[in-house]
């Protein structure tokens, strides 16, 4: 803004027009907001970089583990050891072999003995019991099927011991 002539006997410092004052104030506020936003963005970028580093480390660890699993697969070992299997996985496999006319009353898994599973089973009749044993024998996830003593009334109550071996390869 150019200086305006002023013939006052006691000139005052020129007053900046209100709209210019408002414009300068708005500019300053915008500058402060932009600075704050830039600062926050810098912090967020730092957090994002840290997370990225963490993910990279996890990916690296997973890659190492994957390579180890590949190696173990190539050497003929099962893909998933019994000690690594979650109980839900083993129960699910038991459920697939259980006939409709047999029910499971108790199930225990002994991880210390390499996935030894004990099943307390009640079958509606002898043929249902036989079907259960046959299915267990044929199921790829189970080995070492050992039927226990049977109580045969109208229904058959017995204990079966098997070993869960996971996916055979």
């Amino acid at each position, binding site marked *: 803004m150019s200086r305006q*002539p002023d013939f*006052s006997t006691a000139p005052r410092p020129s007053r900046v027009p209100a709209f210019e004052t408002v414009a300068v104030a708005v500019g300053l506020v915008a500058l402060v907001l932009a600075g704050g936003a830039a600062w926050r963005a810098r912090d967020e970028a730092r957090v994002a970089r840290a997370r990225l580093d963490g993910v990279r480390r996890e990916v690296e660890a997973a890659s190492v583990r994957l390579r180890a699993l590949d190696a173990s697969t190539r050497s003929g070992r099962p893909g998933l050891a019994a000690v690594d299997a979650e109980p839900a996985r083993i129960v699910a496999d038991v459920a697939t072999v259980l006939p409709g006319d047999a029910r499971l009353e108790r199930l225990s898994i002994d991880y210390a003995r390499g996935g030894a599973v004990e099943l307390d089973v009640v079958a509606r009749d002898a043929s249902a019991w036989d079907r259960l044993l046959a299915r267990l024998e044929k199921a790829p996830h189970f080995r070492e099927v050992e039927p226990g003593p049977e109580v045969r009334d109208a229904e058959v109550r017995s204990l079966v011991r098997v070993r869960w071996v996971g996916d055979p390869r």
Partner: protein
Amino acid sequence: MARLGTRLYLALDASAVAAAALGEGLGGRRARGFARVPLEPGALVPSPSSPSFARGDEVRGAMRRALQGLGGSRVTLVLPDGLARIALFDLPRGAQPRDYVRFRLAASLPWPASETIVESLPAAHGRVVGAAVRRSTVAEYEEAAVAAGLEIERVHLAPLLALEGLVRSGARDAVHAVLGDVALCLATFHEGALVALRNRRRDRSSGEALRLRDEVGRAAAHAGNGTGPARLVVSGADAARLRREVGGEPSGRGLEGPGEWDDAVEAAWLGGLLS
């Protein structure tokens, strides 16, 4: 109440006190209000070296009434033509405009140079319009404004405001006569630039239009403004009458106040502010 970005201007001359409220924004200046209160002849007699306020009470009352409808009391005081010595100078390279104007005008002032307030207005091609006014004269107007309950933000000169508008808007090639009640400026523009400037007291007796036309011819000739008849553009106090009387070669309309107010038309200083 004064609005955001509004400046009040209060102009005094022998015939009236005029006030204008101008909004100043990014789109330029805009008139938001205007009022003119006539003065009885002889109440205010603008003079460069003797008191102007013959009947101060009357003038102060007019100042208050002019501002009544506009609100606010902080004003830029606009002094009439006839108080200052005004001239156009070629500014030497490196010279400070105000110092140079003071140096050039000092010898011709009818009052001691130490009592002078000098200001300058940039014109194109290294020229400046210089104006010198006696400190005690300004003080007299300031005291009257303060006595009327006003706060003075700045003091300006009506002819300088008009010239500033002409220079800023690149006035067309012509001799622009800017009339105050007691003095006038003849500003010659050539190729959009101010090339010559005369300031003298008016003689409003019969035949003023003819004398003005003769003077315009001389001003144009001195300015080397071609061989054709000089075009005259008249603005300011009594401009409409003089335009009619000059007749013949039609005189253009010059600086005018905003058309919303009939009595603003002859406020050339306001036209300068708005151009």
